[in-house]
């Protein structure tokens, strides 16, 4: 009887539990980050999808395979509707401001042919990489034609060079950098007058040792038919406030798919931790197709493999990951471009012809703010925020390191050691340990010194005591 009734209770409880609706998932993706050991650990979600807009909703008609998105300094969204060869400009509230379908080039009407890249300068000039027409077009804010820049001309460029500009960026000094399709020599650089000045930055050539072996034993005819070892081309670029250029490459083998090029084209990206910024640490690696640099050296890279956006700080440490491939709001079918403005991230989906906006959560804004303070060296203010971050996510290693560094400055060496150990920062742990050790020895010098002297004296006395009888014994032996 008792068993029966207890079974009944159990069944009814189970039924009730299964009937209760499960709490709605706040986001269609999981928040996570990577620990020092390379394990994916759960983390709160930093940005949540808030709204989305497609061409129909914007009142311009559907966008066909839009290729690029740009958010200007005023927060206006420039959508490059590649399939229709036009630019759609939206304001902050997502009202359509302007649609640039074509322009007057001298006497005749001109238009774009499948353009893939777009850039808007602070002055409001629009640069379009008019891919199939093989030129760059500069327009002013209202869509009036300013100039066009054709294919680069120089002796270093071979006769068979085909010019298909895919992406364009313009730095503060007006220098123009173009990512060309199939151009593995690097970025094509033009000066502000549109004169070709050279190629900048290249990826290193990578080859398989096995291929190299076969190549070395094969005949010339065979070799000519083999694949050449050429560096991989850049596929996207962005420029930061200081004029450094960030590039991405789809290369699932390298550990530097993201590069930060200085004016002479040398990669100066900082990699602080054990794990370089390569996205997911799984076998099927991430393929970065766009990069967006925000302030304070924070950059976001868009991964096409899983539709995720990885945000790194200036030390190359992963801050948070958002997004995923899927069909819900906040997931993508074929993401093409990422941009951010203030507290929002915008992602353009090429297949759906849609922009999704993500707004920052409490966790995300705390991490952003703490990281800003941290990278500008205000460790004590940052530490307060890092403590708040830890309340939401006890796995967040950067927060431990941040607090540890702050404690180290304040002279709380022992506590700093605890935090730096939790954050797995051996370098700063070692610094804290050194300071703590010195402090400890200074405080306890008298005890240890007394102890040492006592031990030395004691040792000496024992040695004397032990040795003397032996000597006598030996002497006696000798006598007898």
């Amino acid at each position, binding site marked *: 009887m008792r068993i029966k009734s207890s079974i009944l209770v159990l069944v009814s409880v189970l039924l009730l539990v299964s009937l209760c609706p499960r709490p709605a998932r706040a986001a269609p993706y999981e928040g996570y980050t990577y620990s020092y*050991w390379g394990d994916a650990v759960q983390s709160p979600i930093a940005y949540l999808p808030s709204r989305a807009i497609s061409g129909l909703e914007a009142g311009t008609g559907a966008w066909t395979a839009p290729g690029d998105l740009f958010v200007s300094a005023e927060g206006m969204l420039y959508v490059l509707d590649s399939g229709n060869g036009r630019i759609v400009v939206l304001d902050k509230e997502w009202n359509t401001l302007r649609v640039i379908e074509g322009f007057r080039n001298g006497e005749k009407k001109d238009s774009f042919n499948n353009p893939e890249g777009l850039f808007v300068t602070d002055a409001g000039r629009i640069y379009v990489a008019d891919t199939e027409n093989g030129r760059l077009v500069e327009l002013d804010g209202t869509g009036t034609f300013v100039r066009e820049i054709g294919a680069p001309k120089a002796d270093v460029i071979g006769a068979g060079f085909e010019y298909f500009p895919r992406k364009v960026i313009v730095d503060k000094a007006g220098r123009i950098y173009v990512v060309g399709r199939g151009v593995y020599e690097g970025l094509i650089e033009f000066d502000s007058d549109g004169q070709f000045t050279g190629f900048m930055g290249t990826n290193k050539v990578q080859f398989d040792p096995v291929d190299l072996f076969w190549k070395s034993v094969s005949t010339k005819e065979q070799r000519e038919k083999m694949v050449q070892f050429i560096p991989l081309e850049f596929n996207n670029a962005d420029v930061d406030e200081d004029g450094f250029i960030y590039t991405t490459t789809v290369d699932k083998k390298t550990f530097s798919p993201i590069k930060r090029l200085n004016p002479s084209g040398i990669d100066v990206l900082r990699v602080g931790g054990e794990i370089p910024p390569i996205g997911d640490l799984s076998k099927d690696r991430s393929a970065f197709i766009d990069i967006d640099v925000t302030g304070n050296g924070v950059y976001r890279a868009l991964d096409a493999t899983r539709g995720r956006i990885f945000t790194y700080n200036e030390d190359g440490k992963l801050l948070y990951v958002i997004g995923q491939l899927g069909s819900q709001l906040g997931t993508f079918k074929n993401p093409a471009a990422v941009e951010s403005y203030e507290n929002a991230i915008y992602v353009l989906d090429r297949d759906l012809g849609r922009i999704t906006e993500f707004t920052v959560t409490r966790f995300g804004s705390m991490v952003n703010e703490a990281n800003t303070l941290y990278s500008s060296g205000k460790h004590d203010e940052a530490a307060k925020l890092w403590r708040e971050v830890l309340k939401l996510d006890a796995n967040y290693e950067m927060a431990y390191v941040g607090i540890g560094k702050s404690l180290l400055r304040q002279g709380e060496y022992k506590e700093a050691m605890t935090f730096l*150990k939790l954050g797995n920062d*051996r*370098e700063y*742990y*070692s*610094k804290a*340990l*050194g300071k703590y*050790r010195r402090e400890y020895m200074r405080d306890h010098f008298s005890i240890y010194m007394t102890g040492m002297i006592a031990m030395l004296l004691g040792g000496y006395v024992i040695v004397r005591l032990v040795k003397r009888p032996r000597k006598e014994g030996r002497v006696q032996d000798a006598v007898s």
Partner: protein
Amino acid sequence: MPFLKDIKYSLHVAMHPFDGFWDLKYENKGKLRMALGILLALTLTMIVKRQYVGYVVNYNHPLELNSINELKYIIFPFLLWCLANWSLTTLMDGEGKFAEIVITTGYALLPLILINIPNILLSNVITLREASFYHLLDALATLWFVWLLFIGTMTVHQYTVLKTITTMLLTLAVVGIIIFLGLLFFNLIQQIVSFVYTVYQELSLRG
């Protein structure tokens, strides 16, 4: 106090290997239980080392530490070495018996304990800049161990220097062969078991 005497003797072997190993073989001073005791102590030391070596030089993932692994890394190689060395030296006119080989190898392990225990303590108070001292001591322990093993093998089997070196290298090769045969054997057993099981399954499903 025979135990204390054993310890004193094992220290004597570590400090004066030529003299020590000679006595070990011809005066029967080496004890099998002492050798096994050293092996056990070394295993414990290594477990402690993995867990408690200073954070600055400790790159072990705490979630992946497993004391059973020390069986794989210490006891198993020890037994393999003794077995391989014995199999080889019986064919190469070695004078050592199996027990002697075990005792010699066991006694040779002592420096690893002697150096590692203070080293663990030291590693907890050093910074990254001084970490090379830790690594130096670590390397010294290994060198000392190899030195003792070399002298031990030479004395026990009454070999010349060159022959000892060859024997030791060959022993490593034999260890490889034993592992290979072992894997082969287990693989075959596995195949047989799965074959028998399949036949059984087939019969039982048809019957």
